[in-house]
């Protein structure tokens, strides 16, 4: 029986016992580039479905004996391997205990993906915003562990979980720390702007055109009015038609094989871009608005986070259609009120923007150079100091000096 399942049996002459050696091998997907979080600069390894590979990938990045991997099995029938990873003296013991406690309360027959776990241990499962970060990248997990966070690896899925996750961290891409800090900062700012745009653009358009045309320049107002002439629907309906079409296209494109996916794009582009405008169902300006929204929403790095933005966008569209600019602001304030109440494993979701210390703001909307970020983020990490090294020492110790002009002269003489 053991041989049939792939184990090796060792029979030793003279002994009554047989040694069964676990040499099961099974077809596993090799380590390949992560599909959802691609980078240009940086490691191209991604997690696979095999739990052991994944823990090894993280371990390779943290050769610290204090890196702990606590293993447990969840699922009454599936007995899925779950690993809790943290660095002992950086992660707060309360956080680790809390993660363990929450995991141990899960009682289900099978765990098929880390998504199952996520739903069980989230602080507020009714919220639109994900409070746990799922990632395919071992370097991201390692970076999070170094910050004092806790990672949860689940067998049979390439997505590991990182807790606590904050609003801020969902705007960060792995690459931000690998490219030079100035472009990284600019890119991050762009991402935040894109996030805002994807949230408010359609709502703002509706509020302005159907409630307060007074705030736009006269020429723009006239050209919008001219473009909308003959469109049978109010701006809200127009926006909803186009947004829905776009969301459908997006959904269709994700599910279809890549070869057909391209065709969907062409059909969608033609339908939205040309035919609908020419048929007079929507105005060309609305197409621009929806296109801007779509492009902006793609630049949010995290998929489940951008889903939250998608849904809030629709909420804002309704509130703007109902009360104009006032409704839109109230909608945003409601969202803010929700966000401040949200917590991820005891960490305020909006930190470090709330209850902040100045040093934590170095890695938020901006990404300051490495040598300036000497401390780990407060509140999460126990052992604060990340490095003692500073820029001056690097400069001081430099052996290769530029040739000075004075020396040149000396040579000639």
């Amino acid at each position: 029986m053991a041989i049939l399942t792939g184990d090796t049996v060792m029979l030793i002459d003279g002994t009554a016992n047989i040694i069964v050696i676990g040499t099961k091998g099974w077809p596993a997907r090799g380590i390949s580039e992560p599909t959802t979080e691609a980078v240009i600069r940086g490691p191209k390894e991604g997690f696979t479905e095999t739990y052991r590979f994944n823990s090894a990938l993280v371990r390779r990045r943290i050769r610290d004996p204090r890196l702990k991997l606590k293993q447990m099995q969840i699922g009454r029938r599936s007995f899925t391997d779950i690993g809790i990873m943290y660095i002992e003296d950086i992660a707060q013991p309360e956080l680790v205990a809390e993660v363990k406690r929450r995991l141990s309360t899960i009682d289900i027959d099978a765990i098929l993906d880390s998504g199952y776990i996520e739903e069980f241990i989230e602080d507020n499962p009714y919220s639109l915003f994900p409070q746990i970060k799922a990632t395919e990248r071992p370097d991201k997990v390692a970076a999070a562990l170094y910050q004092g966070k806790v990672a949860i690896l689940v067998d049979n899925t390439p997505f590991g979980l990182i807790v606590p996750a904050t609003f801020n961290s969902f705007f960060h891409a792995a690459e931000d720390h690998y490219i030079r800090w100035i472009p990284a900062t600019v890119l991050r700012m762009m991402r935040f702007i894109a996030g805002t745009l994807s949230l408010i653009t359609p709502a703002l358009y509706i509020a302005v055109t159907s409630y307060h045309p007074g705030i736009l320049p006269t020429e723009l107002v006239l050209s919008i009015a001219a473009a909308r002439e003959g469109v049978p629907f109010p701006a809200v309906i127009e926006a909803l038609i186009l947004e829905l079409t776009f969301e459908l296209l997006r959904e269709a494109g994700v599910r279809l094989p890549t070869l057909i996916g391209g065709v969907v794009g062409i059909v969608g582009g033609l339908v939205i871009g040309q035919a609908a405008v020419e048929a007079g169902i929507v105005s060309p300006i609305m197409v621009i608005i929806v296109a801007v929204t779509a492009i902006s929403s793609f630049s949010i790095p995290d998929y489940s986070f951008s889903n939250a933005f998608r849904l809030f966008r629709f909420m804002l569209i309704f509130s703007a259609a109902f009360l104009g600019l006032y409704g839109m602001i109230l909608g945003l304030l409601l969202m803010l009120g929700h966000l401040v109440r949200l917590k991820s494993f005891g960490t305020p979701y909006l930190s470090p923007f709330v209850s902040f210390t100045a040093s934590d703001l170095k890695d938020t909307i901006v990404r300051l150079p490495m040598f300036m970020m000497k401390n780990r983020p407060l509140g999460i990490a126990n052992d604060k100091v990340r490095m003692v090294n500073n820029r001056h020492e690097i400069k001081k110790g430099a052996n290769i000096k530029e040739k000075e002009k004075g020396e040149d002269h000396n040579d000639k003489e």
Partner: protein
Amino acid sequence: MIRNNDNISPYQLAMLVIMSIIGVGVFNIVHVIAKFGGNDGWIIMTAMGIVHIFLAFLFIRLSCRFPGKTFPEYIQEILGVVLGKILVFAISCYILLNLAYEVREFTEVAKMFLLPRTPTEVIIFALILVCAYVVRGGVESVARVVEITFPILFIPFFLVLIPGFPNLDLTNLLPVGSDIGTKFTRMIPHAPHAFRGIEYILFYIGFMKRPQRAYKPVAWGLIFVTGFYTLVSVIGIGAFGAKSATKAIWPLLLYIRNINIPGLFIERLDGVILSIWVITVFTTIITGFFIVTYSISKVINSKEQKQFALPLMMFIYYLALQPAGLAELYEWGDWIFKYVSSIFIYVIPIVALLIAAIRRLGVKKSEDF
């Protein structure tokens, strides 16, 4: 389970101070200053701001005697349970009235500029519903909202003021300091109009771990408020002259409406500024509203303040709908701020401090300044 800590940091306290004082009156304050202080209004404003900083220090002195306790808790020690509860209840009623005033004033403006045909009820209801949602989150939630809205509010606000600078004529502020004595005496009864909301400090200090550390943030908060009011009155009076600024009900709004930025996506800024106004009103209401729910929960000896948010919201709603129009509202406001506010802002805290000192209650001396 990791619990809420229900504490506020010094930084959050400063933000609370700023946001609870700067409210719906931002646009109207220049009118008041110009009316009573003339072209020297800004000097009087600065002076009054400094006085109020010292007043706030008295609040802190009082709170320092009872570390770890909030005002509704220790006032029951100072005055006795029954009297203390009555006082706390009275303050809650006064703050409710204050909030209703804010809501109504804002609604009238919103109705005029943004939504002329939307029923007043809907405008009010939508606003206070959102406020109640935030207040249900407790002091942490309020403090965080305030903390985040601070940059969202003031950065655009200052940016919006800049393009109007070419319209400024600072010679309108001249002559400086003529007849300043009478202007001062005319202005002083209206001080609570500008600085109402300062009494909220008394409540919020109690949520700090160490109230002794409140001096700095409170001072900074009030310096910011004073600076802001001074700037706004310099701009308002500088742009129009005291006479014109008195004529307009919301001079600052007028100032912004006169700006025309050609070639930008937004040509006129009044939409922006009214949106900003929604946020100021929102923050003022949540800071006050939380105090009311909290105080009521202390009066009834209930542990949670959450459940009071929705019922009390109805009171605000009802009170806000009482005045017939803007004229009546402002008359009410004048009366409330001149007499009632003065009692709650100046008289009660000082009397409480005196009684506490005479009865030698609480910790006598705060060790560090």
